[in-house]
């Protein structure tokens, strides 16, 4: 099963894994990116993700299709949350099922690293005290990005 989505709904780990693997899979790997309560020395209360939705959906599909080709599995889920999130909530979920663990780890790692380079999504952190700020990120296509 292949599934990608940008979602405003909370991501539930059990949902991510549902119907993912087949009887030939001996490894099922789940990665969750979670909102943490601090960043660069500041206390974070929550954050807002904004996306260029039409493009981000295409990028998610491309990433999964690249991982399929590289790691030989079509059991991949790749989700990214958008909107307002609180500390502890899941921002990113990556699930991969493969016959052996090496491919699952490699595919999961590939997906998160490429997502961070290429997904047109931005993050505004809200700090204790009411301030907020767009968090500096990576410049796609300007060193390291791209397929």
């Amino acid at each position, binding site marked *: 099963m292949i599934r990608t989505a940008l979602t405003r709904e909370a991501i539930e780990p059990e949902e991510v894994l549902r119907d993912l693997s087949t009887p030939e899979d001996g490894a099922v790997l789940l990665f969750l990116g979670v909102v943490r309560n601090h960043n660069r020395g500041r206390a974070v209360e929550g954050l807002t993700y904004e996306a260029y939705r039409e493009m981000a959906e295409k990028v998610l599909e491309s990433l999964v299709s690249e991982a399929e080709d590289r790691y030989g599995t079509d059991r991949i889920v790749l989700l*990214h949350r958008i909107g307002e999130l609180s500390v502890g909530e899941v921002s*990113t979920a990556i699930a991969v099922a493969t016959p052996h663990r090496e491919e699952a780890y490699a595919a999961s790692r590939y997906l998160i690293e490429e997502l961070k380079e290429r997904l047109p999504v*931005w993050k505004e952190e809200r700090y204790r005290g009411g301030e907020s700020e767009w968090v500096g*990120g990576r410049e*796609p*296509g300007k060193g390291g990005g791209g397929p």
Partner: protein
Amino acid sequence: MHIRALFFASYGEILGTRELTVEISRASTVEALVRELRSRGEPFSRLPPSPVVAVNREYAQEDTLLREGDEVAFLPPVAGG
């Protein structure tokens, strides 16, 4: 010709708008569009001289040629994950 320009996250906040229709001469490049916008003065001059841009939802380069009706998105450094 007309280009639909989109500005995300911090760029949208700098400009106070998220979408503009820009008129520019035929067969302009991405670079020419950026130059035209930045020459408008504040707040446009606060856009970076060579921002990351997507044309019709694909990452593009400065020398990418634009066509009538293209959607050109100005993308601040991305921070998903």
